[in-house]
């Protein structure tokens, strides 16, 4: 977008056109020009050979054993701890709870050491919030220069206090492993920082930007999906009280998550630029250099694909043949979301329950419901996300 604001681009909302462009090799990634300081030259924004090389490197994070370790050793204990504290209070802000929980997972994935106490987590969350706003500045309704300036302060503090010490420790572990061979190699953790440093990435800011992307993507989107799911289910139950008994069943919750992802797209649009002239299946003629805002949210509501009730949340929806139940929520094509297996749990043949389902089940077991005394507030952004979403929970005393 170089000089053109994303809000001034031609918006495409037809599901077939959006899907075709996302999977076509005649288009390149053009998102995130304004947030380059935060996520420029990362796996999200790279293209071509450079993108493929980064994707190959980061695919090590998607090994089944690694994902299972993240869930078993990080996510589940964090849910236990955070939910017990929230139930003792009887009320919590769901946005904050979700971000706190997924922050722990992000820290483990990135390789941030020692984020164990609530104080550590609050400290990291202090960096996270301005980084979320900076990384999504193109959609902010605040002054963009101010948002970027606040984000850069947070990025530098995140780098100095957490990333640099963690990187130094990993450099030492890698050096030791090279000296000692296979035995020491087992002590080298599989995380973002180790992979980037082991790959001889010399540009510190490149490592920092990738670590910003992982921090923001892991927390913003997942906490957003949790909040949207609770919001949608609350309304659904008002008209379908018979489904209340299904709220602790993973199969139903999986459908809830899929349908939430389809109807509540957080990011307003993905940006793509044509690299050559092409005629789309719709007959639209596109010239090289033309840039489009692909409104995935609207595409996921396209009635020609999803039916006349496409705008409505319906966890019992029949999925059109050849489509995913969550539509294009994770994108598609070479830039499809790297973390999708972890979100959906599709890397395992065993339980199949992704991390969003795992947390949702625990929340519904705890009787989560919107707090009628404290209305939710929206973020200062064109993104579909809440700033706060206060909920009530049952006491855990007679529960677990």
């Amino acid at each position, binding site marked *: 977008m170089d000089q053109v604001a994303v809000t001034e681009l031609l918006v495409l909302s037809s599901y077939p056109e959006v899907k075709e462009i996302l*999977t076509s090799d005649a288009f390149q990634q053009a998102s995130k020009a304004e947030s380059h300081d935060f996520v420029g030259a990362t796996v999200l924004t790279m293209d071509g050979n450079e993108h*493929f090389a980064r*994707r190959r490197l980061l*695919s090590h994070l998607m090994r089944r054993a690694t994902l299972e370790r993240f869930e078993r050793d990080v996510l589940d204990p964090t849910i236990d701890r955070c939910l017990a504290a929230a139930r003792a209070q009887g009320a919590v802000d769901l946005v904050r709870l979700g971000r706190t929980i997924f922050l722990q997972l992000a820290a483990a994935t990135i390789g941030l050491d020692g984020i164990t106490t609530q104080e550590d987590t609050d400290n990291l969350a202090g960096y996270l919030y301005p980084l979320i706003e900076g990384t999504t500045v193109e959609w902010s309704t605040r002054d963009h220069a101010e948002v970027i300036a606040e984000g850069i302060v947070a990025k530098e503090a995140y780098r100095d206090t957490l990333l640099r010490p963690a990187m130094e420790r990993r450099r030492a572990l890698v050096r030791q492993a090279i000296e000692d061979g296979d035995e020491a190699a087992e002590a080298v953790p599989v995380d973002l920082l180790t992979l980037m440093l082991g790959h001889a990435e010399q540009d510190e800011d490149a490592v920092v930007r990738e670590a910003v992307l992982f921090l923001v993507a892991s927390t913003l989107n997942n906490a957003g999906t949790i909040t949207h799911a609770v919001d949608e289910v609350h309304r659904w139950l008002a008209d379908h009280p018979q489904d209340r008994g299904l709220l602790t069943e993973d199969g139903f919750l999986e459908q809830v998550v899929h349908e939430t992802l389809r109807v509540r797209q957080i990011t307003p649009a993905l940006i793509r630029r044509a690299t050559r002239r092409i005629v789309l299946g719709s007959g639209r003629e596109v010239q090289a250099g033309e840039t489009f805002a692909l409104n995935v949210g609207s595409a996921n509501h396209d009635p020609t694909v999803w039916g006349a009730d496409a705008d409505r949340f319906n966890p019992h929806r029949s999925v059109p043949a050849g489509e995913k139940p969550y539509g294009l929520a994770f994108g598609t094509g070479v830039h*499809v*979301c790297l973390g*999708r*297996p972890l979100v959906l749990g599709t890397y395992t043949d065993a339980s199949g329950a992704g991390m969003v389902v795992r947390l949702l089940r625990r929340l519904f077991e705890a009787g989560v419901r919107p707090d009628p005394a404290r209305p939710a507030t929206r973020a200062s952004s064109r993104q579909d996300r809440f700033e706060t979403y206060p909920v009530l929970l049952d006491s855990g005393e007679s529960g677990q």
Partner: protein
Amino acid sequence: MLDVRVDPQRCEGTGFCARVAPHLFALQDGVAVPREEVVGEEDAEVLAEAERLCPTQAIRARRVDE
């Protein structure tokens, strides 16, 4: 020996597998297909990478008795 399968319902045709292991996978009509259903142990490492790279977990490789 390794048995190689691609789930066509999961595959979204990113082509990562064909790029990292062109001798094992091809893209046909936008979906990846194994060139051979059974491959030798010498391809185990590259097959594991293709499996790991697949963003939709469409590839399954299993060891089989000879």
